[in-house]
């Protein structure tokens, strides 16, 4: 519901921008910068890089907004561009970490169900930094709830089955970190 609302708001702002309302672009940026920053920050783990990547994402939006004629794909476009900008900054390190997940097992996962509640948010935020980048990335996208499993698959250029299994193992890894922290 909220994801759908966010999507509609973004579409509306894009249409208003195309109608000549320049302030719609400001609003669009305000609407997404928190989420995109959070996502990018989970990838680059360096605040300077994260702000720069986010800034470059907005520059790409300003340059490409005239060509964005399919508003429903805007959210995916934003995440994809932010990801590319983050990758540009951290390419070498990130590639090494991605390789480590090759050949991952496929596990059955219930789609759209999260066992974490809002009370866990702060612990989860801390624990996210302690799991591998690919697990962290897929889990962050899942927690932000703006993209469907299929869209996450498109974004990461992997099959949706892999997204589901990666989510499953990412949750296991996160739970392990949380349990470890609780025990210590």
């Amino acid at each position, binding site marked *: *519901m909220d994801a759908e609302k966010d999507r509609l708001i973004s*579409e509306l702002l894009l249409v208003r921008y195309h*109608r000549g309302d320049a302030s719609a672009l400001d609003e669009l*940026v305000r609407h997404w910068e*928190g989420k995109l920053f959070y996502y990018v920050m989970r990838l680059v783990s360096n605040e300077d890089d994260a702000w720069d990547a986010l800034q470059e994402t*907005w520059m790409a939006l300003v340059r490409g907004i005239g060509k964005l004629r399919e508003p429903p794909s805007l959210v995916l476009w934003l995440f994809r561009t932010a990801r590319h900008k983050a990758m540009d900054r951290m390419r070498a390190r990130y590639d090494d970490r991605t390789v480590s997940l090759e050949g991952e097992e496929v596990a059955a996962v219930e789609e759209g169900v999260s066992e974490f509640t809002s009370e866990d948010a*702060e612990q989860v935020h801390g624990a996210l930094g302690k799991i591998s980048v690919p697990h962290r990335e897929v889990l962050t996208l899942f927690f932000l709830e703006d993209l469907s499993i299929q869209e996450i698959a498109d974004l990461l250029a992997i099959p949706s089955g892999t997204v589901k299994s990666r989510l499953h193992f990412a949750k296991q890894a996160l739970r392990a970190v949380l349990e470890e922290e609780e025990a210590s």
Partner: protein
Amino acid sequence: MSDHKRFSDRLIAAEQVDEKRKERYAMELRKILNQTLTPARRIAYVVGAVLGLLFAVDFGVLTVTLHITGQYAAWGRAMFGALTALGLGWTIIAGRIAIRGALDRRADLLAITRLLWGYFLLFFFALLFAGWLDLKYGSGKWSVFLGVIGLSYLVTGALIVIRNSVHQSELRVREKLLEIQLRLVEMDGKMERR
């Protein structure tokens, strides 16, 4: 679902950021969002404004000094006067953009479209008038050619205006539909919470 949403909001809120870095980002962002012209584009607008002014001065001088007599003198002067106005119009638009250093998407683009339409309309009448003069006083060989070129100006101008209007009305309809959809989703959310 709403609890899950709160989860994502709280997750984002848990992110600790350095205020100085954030301020620096905000400053850069303002520049990006103001759509500040790059130096090259700003120079291009200055050059455009100067060319427009030269165009206006040229035709302005012709309007005042040209010795045309007879029953069509007023028409000729009006034509040159309109060209002067077009040149001045462009100078004002381009000059304002260059001074401001940013493009106002709504006002500037609307003004440019109108000016463009004026340009095509003026050339249509000018060419039609020239064709008619050729038919009446000249050999008449050029009249058809001038008429066709004039019509092509009119059609091109009309196409630009129609395309722009259709696009705008499509966007208007889309905007209204999205507003309705958004309201429905919000109402649905309120009912769900109750």
